[in-house]
């Protein structure tokens, strides 16, 4: 009896009331404790490569994307000049084909890796993680493949 009185005065109103010295409430464990099931080593150079790729692709993308935006939206009449003929004219040159291809791949992989780290940091349950990453990778692969296909098989005489 005396124990309940002292603890009750110490912590204020008792919620639930079913917990006591012999039956303490369970502790809220840290999100993922290191247990025996935790893999011993997840070392490898993938995370380092991913980290390095983010920095390098970021630098290249600044040039590619700002150049792209200038050409498409600002220079030489701005956005009103864009049409089928304009795109067809640009993709006739291998230079712009490579530019767009590089931009597509780098931007998609850069964004994909960025979102992967966001999911790793914010998804709390393993299942949520799995599904979000599955969705992300599917969307990325689909967009990259479709874009690459269009750049390589583009036919200006399509009717």
């Amino acid at each position, binding site marked *: 009896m005396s124990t309940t009185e002292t603890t009750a005065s110490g912590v204020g109103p008792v919620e639930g009331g079913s917990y006591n010295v012999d039956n303490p409430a*369970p*502790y*809220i464990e840290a999100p993922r404790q290191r247990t025996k099931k*935790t893999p011993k080593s997840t070392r490898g150079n993938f*995370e380092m490569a991913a980290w390095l790729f983010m920095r390098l692709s970021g630098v290249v993308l600044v040039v590619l994307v700002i150049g792209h935006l200038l050409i498409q939206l600002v220079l030489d009449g701005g956005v009103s000049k864009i049409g089928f003929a304009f795109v067809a004219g640009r993709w006739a040159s291998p230079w712009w084909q490579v530019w767009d291809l590089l931009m597509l791949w780098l931007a998609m992989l850069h964004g994909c890796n960025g979102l992967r*780290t966001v999911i790793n940091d914010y998804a709390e349950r393993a299942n949520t993680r799995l599904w979000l990453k599955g969705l992300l990778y599917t969307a990325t692969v689909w967009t990259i493949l479709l874009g690459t296909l269009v750049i390589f098989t583009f036919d200006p005489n399509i009717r």
Partner: protein
Amino acid sequence: MATPTMEKADAAPEPGFADSPYITVTFRVRRFNSEVSAEATWEDFQLEIDPKERVLDGLHKIKWDLDGTLTFRRSCAHGICGSDAMRINGKNRLACKTLIKDINPEKPITVEPIKGLTVLKDLVVDMEPFFQAYRDVMPFLVTKDTNEPTRERLQSAEDRARFDDTTKCILCAACTSSCPVFWNDGQYFGPAAIVNAHRFIFDSRDEAGEQRLEILNDKDGVWRCRTTFNCTDACPRGIEVTKAIAEVKRALITRRF
């Protein structure tokens, strides 16, 4: 000669009393007791305290005079042992190095346990995951020669200065428990472990730097750092934690390529 002093004291006894350094401060403490409730609750304590005193003195006053059930860790109480890291007014600090006057005593001062670790009671958390990460980086000198050294291992002043900043760590966990990546899942090594790896990786006398870099090249190693600088802000010793992590990253890249 002594008379003037006496006269002054006699003339104004009242102002001396009104100039009392004590002010009334509200401590809002996060309480948890698994033997009472599964929920943590806030509890307010009113204290008469000199604002030049520390938050730890306030907690002592509560524990000694108001409510002996309040539980918290402290050992040296002078910012060296690193026992009393807690979240004060939403920032990780040492209670023994935080003066009441510096954290706006007009408003209630909130005191919580550090985040990301299991709360055992009131302000006491289970530090085991933190120390596990610390042990994982092998925080001790490793040399290749197995014989007992016959003389001191000498080091130049420049070589010593290379890792001077990271020798200051007191393992209080203020940095690791301020890291949002660590909050999400306890798998990330955390700033403190990386700081202590840095201390040996850049020590010219140590010969296991490569091994430690390999450990930190883990999926949950240095590459999970998002450079939010929470750790640098939280460190009570003023260690440039994020810089140390960046130096380990750079060492990994330059030594691999």
